[in-house]
């Protein structure tokens, strides 16, 4: 029996994430939602979701001691970060007047800005909400198996990731500017979009994560 821990620190869309994982999990995989560090560390893989303001997410992560757990997880087994659960893995975010993050991936989280425009000069709404294509910078990555290049995924965010090293970027998207939407580094895979809300493409990515052996 294999287990996947969905890390609960009070700030995630845990139901959606766990139901989507259960939907794609085989009979030998158990999905558990837990905030217990010991239990998280018994799992074969972990998922770090996150929605809402990053200041609150980081505060809850620290309060529950999840920062240490996440460090331990990525040193020993795979971690999938989703949305704010991806952003907190970076060094720093501009949101809420500036928030220090976990620093597991080198890079920053920046604001789209109030005056975002497309290539034709039309004003773009913020948050970036809806289905945008993701270009696969590294199409051979196991998590893209069965997912078309430029397949659309569901996004909802006002802040985006910009990582320090191109080598970490597995997928990119564009919304007024180009930004990093899928990051891969050793045991970490992290996405800005919501695979659990991205219909067939999202489910495929989650299934790939469950099979992934980095």
């Amino acid at each position, binding site marked *: 029996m294999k287990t996947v821990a969905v890390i609960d620190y009070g700030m995630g*869309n845990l*139901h*959606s994430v766990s*139901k*989507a994982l*259960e*939907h794609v999990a085989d009979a030998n995989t158990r999905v558990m939602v837990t905030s217990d560090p010991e239990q998280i560390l018994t799992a074969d893989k972990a998922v770090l979701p996150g*929605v*809402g*303001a990053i200041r609150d997410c980081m505060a809850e992560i620290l309060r529950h001691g999840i920062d240490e757990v996440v460090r331990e997880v990525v040193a020993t087994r795979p971690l999938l970060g989703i949305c704010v659960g991806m952003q907190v893995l970076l060094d720093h975010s501009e949101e809420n007047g500036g928030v220090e993050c976990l620093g597991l991936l080198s890079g920053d989280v920046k604001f789209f800005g*109030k005056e975002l425009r*497309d290539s034709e000069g039309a*004003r*773009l*709404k*913020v*948050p*970036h*909400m*809806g*289905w*945008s*294509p993701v270009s696969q910078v590294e199409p051979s990555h196991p998590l893209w198996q069965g997912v078309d290049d*430029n397949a*659309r995924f*569901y996004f*909802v*965010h006002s802040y985006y990731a910009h990582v320090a090293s191109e080598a970490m970027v597995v997928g990119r998207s*564009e*919304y007024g500017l180009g930004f990093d939407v899928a990051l891969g580094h050793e045991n970490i895979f992290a996405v800005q979009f*919501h695979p*659990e*809300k*991205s*219909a067939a493409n*999202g*489910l495929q990515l989650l299934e790939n994560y469950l099979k992934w052996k980095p």
Partner: protein
Amino acid sequence: MGLAKRIIPCLDVENGRVVKGVQFVDIRDAGDPVEVARRYNEAGADEITFLDITASHEGRDTTVHTVERMASEVFIPLTVGGGIRKVEDIRTMLNAGADKVSINTAAVFNPEFVQEAADRFGSQCIVVAIDAKKVSKPGEQDRWEIFTHGGRKPTGLDAVEWALKMENLGAGEILLTSMDQDGVKNGYDLGVTRAISESVSIPVIASGGAGNLDHLVDGIKEGKADAVLAASIFHFGQYSIPEAKKYMSDRGIEMRV
């Protein structure tokens, strides 16, 4: 390629059943919201909006259970509206698996509720529903007011100013229903849709009045909406979602197809 415009079918649900049912071929139970949502998901709907019109208190448990079932089987964004009056109501729906909640009348009488909700759960899950009706007379400058009670009660609040206020309080999206048009199928009120969409910087969903595919196109092109919501044109089999997407896409609108 960039961000796609969205098509959002809306289900009116009472005591766990879709009101008036849905006319799909080969559907097992056209009154089961979960079955209907699953079919829309398969057809390529971009989101689902679930409007709970259950009046009784006991019926709310049925609603929560329905949302739970839907969120376990349908993996696209799900918005739940109707009867969201307290922070607790939002928590219950989000825990049941909703991605967003739509706040309506409660916001009119207590706008601080929107702020409290956005602070607590994040703007990304707070949709403010606005029911607007044109109040200016022919020849006057266009003006729309917020109405409550299904369009019967005027509030004296200017719709565009109200939308801006909701954005400032933390709304993440506006669901704009033009009351003159709702159910009449003459198309969305493009004037108010455009006025609000161009004033706020958050996404706007056009609702109320879609009767054919040109109306959807107009809602996006003329109304500048980011998404179009429709019920009966899809429920009664007049058009399918793929048909609507192709039609819009052929007219230069970026869609997820």
